[in-house]
């Protein structure tokens, strides 16, 4: 509706004032937040008069997140908020119709029965697609025929990764005749937002490195040699466990290209990373605001916009030629909707989904 006004205040990106409010890990977490931040920075490169301020909310409490946004909203044109913690900004958005909000990884909290807001663009990703490629990679590269996924908390996005991973393994088993088992430690089953048991290996936190390491070690002990790590900071612990193990164990990174985190002496433990390309989409929306084409809405982004996928740049992965080819083929199928991996709520299961 009022997207034109916004373009005016932005005046071709002239002095567009952007703020990014993050959880306590900040915009320099080398991961999720940073990816979004980089999108803003890349936008600013092309619109040098635009500015960005990074602010973080230290407690991780959703109410505090909203409060932090409310504290600073007056001084900015666009607020970027990565993370479910900021779902509650819908109330702030209603009170400040002249500001634009970009919410990543969550739908805005409904206010009354309003679920969509004129000045909020919320983007979610089909993590199951990225997870699917991770599963394929793991299943195709494993020598022990045992793979696993480690998660943080069973939020939908995390469950999506998990289900996608399992879908990918099943796909490889079926299509390429593999016999790969997905290992789960019984003590770490997850409970999703509806209270359902989704299995998997959930550390129960995105910031508990010690537990991450315990889980990592336990998996390695069970003979797992490919671990997909979708656990935020907890994942560092898994990485450490794998590095110390000194075997043939590899990890698959998550959200962003984690190849640099995998350096282990002269070697690297990162096989590839299952990515969702948030920065690119943030930049896209900022551009849209500037050129007046901004459209609000709650959007789920798929492989068809190249928003999900895996890292295949030369030197940033260690996939074998054959695996890479198989994954590239599958990527086209996912893109074309021939393969629809299971997600938390899309009604499919890792055992039974279109394309299997």
């Amino acid at each position, binding site marked *: 509706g009022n997207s034109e006004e916004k373009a005016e205040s932005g005046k071709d990106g002239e002095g567009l004032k952007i703020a990014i409010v993050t959880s306590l890990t900040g915009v*320099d977490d080398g991961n999720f937040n940073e990816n979004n931040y980089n999108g803003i920075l890349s936008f600013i490169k092309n619109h040098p008069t635009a500015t960005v301020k990074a602010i973080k909310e230290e407690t991780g409490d959703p109410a505090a997140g909203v409060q932090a946004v409310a504290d600073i909203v007056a001084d900015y044109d666009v607020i970027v908020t990565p993370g479910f913690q900021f779902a509650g900004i819908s109330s702030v958005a209603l009170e400040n119709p002249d500001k634009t909000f970009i919410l990543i990884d969550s739908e805005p909290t409904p206010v009354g029965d309003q679920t969509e807001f004129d000045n909020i663009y919320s983007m979610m990703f089909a993590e199951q697609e990225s997870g699917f490629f991770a599963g394929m990679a793991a299943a195709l590269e494993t020598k022990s025929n045992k793979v696993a996924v480690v998660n943080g908390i069973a939020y939908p996005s995390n469950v999506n990764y998990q289900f996608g991973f399992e879908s990918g393994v099943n796909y490889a088993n079926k299509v390429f005749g593999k016999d790969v088992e997905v290992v789960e*430690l019984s*003590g770490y089953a997850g409970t999703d937002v509806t209270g359902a048991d989704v299995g998997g290996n959930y550390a*129960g936190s995105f*910031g508990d*490195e010690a537990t991450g390491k315990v889980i990592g070690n336990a998996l390695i002990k069970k003979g797992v040699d490919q671990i997909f790590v979708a656990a935020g900071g907890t994942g560092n612990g898994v990485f450490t466990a794998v*590095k110390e193990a000194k075997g043939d164990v590899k990890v698959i990174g998550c959200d962003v290209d984690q190849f640099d985190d995998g*350096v*282990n*002496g002269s070697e690297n433990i990162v096989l590839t990373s299952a990515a969702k390309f948030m920065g690119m989409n943030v930049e896209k929306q900022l551009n849209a605001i500037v050129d007046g084409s901004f459209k609000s809405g709650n959007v789920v982004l798929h492989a068809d916009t190249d928003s999900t996928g895996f890292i295949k740049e030369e030197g940033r992965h260690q996939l074998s030629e054959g695996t890479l080819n198989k994954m590239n083929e599958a990527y086209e199928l996912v893109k074309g909707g021939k393969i629809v991996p299971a997600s938390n709520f899309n009604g499919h299961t890792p055992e039974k989904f279109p394309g299997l």
Partner: protein
Amino acid sequence: MDTVIIDGLSFALPLFIMAIGGIYSEKSGITNLALEGFQGFGAFIGALSAILIANAFGTDIQDLFYVALLFAMVGGMVFAIIHAVLCIKFKANQVISGVVINILALALTTFLTTQINSLVFGTASDKFQLGVMERFTISGLADIPVIGAIFTNVYPFEVIIIVIAIFAWYLLYKTKFGMRLRACGENPHSVDAAGVDVAKIRYTAVLISGLLSGLGGMCFAYSISANFSSSIYMGYGFLAIAALIFGNWKIIPTLAACLLFGFAKSGGAFIAQSMALPSSYTDLFMILPYVVTLLLLIFFSKSNRAPKALGEIYDKGKR
């Protein structure tokens, strides 16, 4: 079962070396709640030095863990100067000084980590990424049932800690420095009258506690995540203090207390895992070390005796 011992030891030993630091400080009469801050700041300096050296000389950071350990000790010691000066020269309340130092350490290191990352390395990151410490297994001994686990997957730092701990014991109980130090915590006036500078001994003691805590902190940084970030502040400093009080300010009983914490911790996780309970139950097992400590304290506290002059501000003139 092996994991219980392996993980238990790799947790208990850094805790132990921090507790020894605490013993040194408290035996000299200076209450030390600042262990947490020392370990954090020490680990910060250790990690920073490793990164800077790797950066400057192009050394593989993987090979720098002894350098990191060394600088962590220096870092812990440097930060301990604050506590020493506050408590000894400025005659501040020692408990308060400790708490303040913890707050300051957390604030400073998180601030500096991001600041240095962006200013010096031009990267945006809130942690210093280190190489992992290579673990080793002593082949013959590792095959012994049960005890073999002690020699399996050992971090080099565990050996270092044991060596330092033995030396610390020798220094505290056998040398004249140790004799004077312990006397400072019992009756500083007697030390002063014997012509020994109480302040100097106490400075040294607090610095040693900083040094050892820095070492402990670096070991935790390596064993938990192989990087430095603010997640190093997990209350282990306070746990070390609890261990040393529980150990009645003596090195050997304190080792026992640390092992209790370590094994109860890894054991708790192990039980929860092997009983296949949902992960929430792990929390119930996690209270094990603390409940056991409290219960044991109920039986042993009566005979527990803190150094007599602990926490007292020493003033020559005051009689």
